[in-house]
């Protein structure tokens, strides 16, 4: 059994009357990429700040590498890398100096540091920009610099807080590949994002937070299978009318029929062979139809289903 790198138990953080993190527990095992998901204001960043001992929490314990995490736990901190949501670099230093400076906070040996910095630049594809000041970099390059500053010291645990916000697909792809490679090289990763396809592609396990609570936890397939009994059938039906819609609604397990241009979208709630039942109804009643498809739930559906669809702050 793999070792538990991060262990959060019953974490509670209040801001006055508002409970930001509500008895939240989480385990991160060695070598895994854990996706931490949640709508805006769900408590993800607060949890990460508590995890990093940047914030004092009201209750609970945070253990990293089997030791209690405290502000002065320098031995733990030296093994953690953080990639902030906002770009955290020094504007007046160039790319190389920035990476060297932040890496130097962890690595004292000059030769090792030089090697690590070069590797980090290479890894993020910034070698040719090392003399550039941050202001001269494009959004994607800046994000990559932000990552280089966070990972240059080769940490064992890396926390990525939405690292791909406002990044083009090419850069995003490069970042995701990089994260996979770091994971392959042995780093344990906590990854927060609002991009579900990224999480699906990257994370071996996902925790969904809302209102400060851990409301779902499992691999992506486990989470999706919890919605497996929901099926959506899309039928191209140029001659549809109210009677047809009414007829379809009467089929067992069909709970919603919605028009979408020439198509009808039929939502089924459980049951077997729903597609066969729909098609039989159409052929039995001589209703001509075109293209037919069925859709299974995505992680996005899971997320919306669990957290609800109302707008957040």
């Amino acid at each position, binding site marked *: 059994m793999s070792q538990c790198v991060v262990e959060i138990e019953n974490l509670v953080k209040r801001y006055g009357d508002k409970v930001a993190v509500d008895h939240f527990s989480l385990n991160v095992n060695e070598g895994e990429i854990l996706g931490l998901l949640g709508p805006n204001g769900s408590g993800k960043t607060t949890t990460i700040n508590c995890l990093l001992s940047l914030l004092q929490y009201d209750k609970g314990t945070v253990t990293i590498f089997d030791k209690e995490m405290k502000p*002065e736990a320098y031995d733990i901190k030296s093994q953690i890398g953080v990639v*902030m949501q906002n770009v955290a670099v020094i504007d007046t230093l160039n790319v190389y100096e920035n990476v060297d400076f932040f890496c*130097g906070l962890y690595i004292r040996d000059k030769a090792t540091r030089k090697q690590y910095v070069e590797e980090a630049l290479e890894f993020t594809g910034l070698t040719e920009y090392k003399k550039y000041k941050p202001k001269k970099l494009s959004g994607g390059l800046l994000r990559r610099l932000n990552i280089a500053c966070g990972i240059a010291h080769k940490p064992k645990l890396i926390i990525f807080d939405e690292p791909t916000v406002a990044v083009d697909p090419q850069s995003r792809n490069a970042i995701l590949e990089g994260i996979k490679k770091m994971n392959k090289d042995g780093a344990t990763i906590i990854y927060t994002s609002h991009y579900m396809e990224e999480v699906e592609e990257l994370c071996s396990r996902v925790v969904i937070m809302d209102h400060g609570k851990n409301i779902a936890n499992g691999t992506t397939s486990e989470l999706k299978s919890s919605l497996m009994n929901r099926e959506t059938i899309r039928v191209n039906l140029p001659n549809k009318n109210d009677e047809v819609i009414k007829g379809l609604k009467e089929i067992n397990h069909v709970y919603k029929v919605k028009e979408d241009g020439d198509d009808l979208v039929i939502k089924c709630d459980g049951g077997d062979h729903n597609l066969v039942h729909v098609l039989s109804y159409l052929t039995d009643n001589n209703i001509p139809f075109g293209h037919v498809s069925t859709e299974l739930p995505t992680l996005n559906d899971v997320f919306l289903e669990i957290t609800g669809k109302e707008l957040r702050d």
Partner: protein
Amino acid sequence: MFGRIFVYKFKEIIRNRYMVGWNFLFPIVLATVFYMGFGNLIKDDPDNFHTIEAGYVNTNQEESNFEKVLEELEEETDGNVAILSLKKYDSRQAAMDAMNSDEVFGFYVEDGDEIETIVPKNGYHATIMNQIVREYDNKKNVVETIAKDHPEKIQAAMDMVTDNITIMKEHDFGNNTSPYVQYFFALIAMSSLFSSWISTAILEGICANMTERGKRFECSPTSKLMTILAGICAAMVMQSVSNAVVVIYVQEILKISLGAPLWNIILITTLGSAVGVSSGVLIGSLIKNEKLLIVVPLCFTMTCSFFSGLMWHQIRQYIESRVPIFNRINPASLLVDCLYTRATYGKTSMYYQDIITMSCMVIGCLIISAFLLRRRKYVSL
């Protein structure tokens, strides 16, 4: 580790064009402007006594004693300028025309026994011209009174009148720097206190509740206080160099003597930089609002500089005569006072007192800040 953070913090500061602008360029520009504005006043104070151009009209057509007295006043005395520069006119009208065309300030008309003084306006010149007549009359009266009461002493009295005994002695303080140099001292104080802004900027980059960079710092296994100390040292070096540049510029390029050896002034201004930097650290450890971190050091600097005489050179002494305690706690006034005392009186007890107070301020600010920052292990995000 300390050295590396120091080097990087120093790089960070000197590459920040706003800091270089405000802390390096602005004092030099202001020093140049002060030089242009006050340069002449430093060389020749307008309050200094200047020979009065006076006219004289004698309608008696015979040589008078008063005229002799006036002529005596035309001579320079032990290094001092002559009191009067006399121009004689034939008629009252000619003298009046000369006065109206600014050829002379005013004039005397001697008619019979009467001596009339005519001036265009009141002021020191008018009073001095009038005083000369009074003095002449006075001595006449003294001699007449003695002649009447003690005729046997009249010769001795006459001798004494002409002897002109010096009863008044000026207290000599040695080095007499112009009060206008005070503006340059206040300028150096302002520049030193501007470094409080550098300190808050450094703290901003180190504390997690202020910037994302700060978060990165606090996540690293580096001691926060050591990092802050390295930052403070970088700020100190930057500000001390900036102050030294201003001092050398004023003394060597603008050729305005600051009244003390260069090394001594630079040492004092270095202490001033330490005061500015440490007060900035204290401000930074007390305030958490990002906007206030710029506004408060600026207001602090400008208020302290104003009361130390940056805009009105008399204000520091005015406060000294009314609420002296304020001058003892205003860092800008302390620095100005230290420089001024050194320049004017040398290394007096006041000079050492200023140095000790400033040193205590530096230590006090740093201890309180360290206490506040140490207590603030967790930040409020």
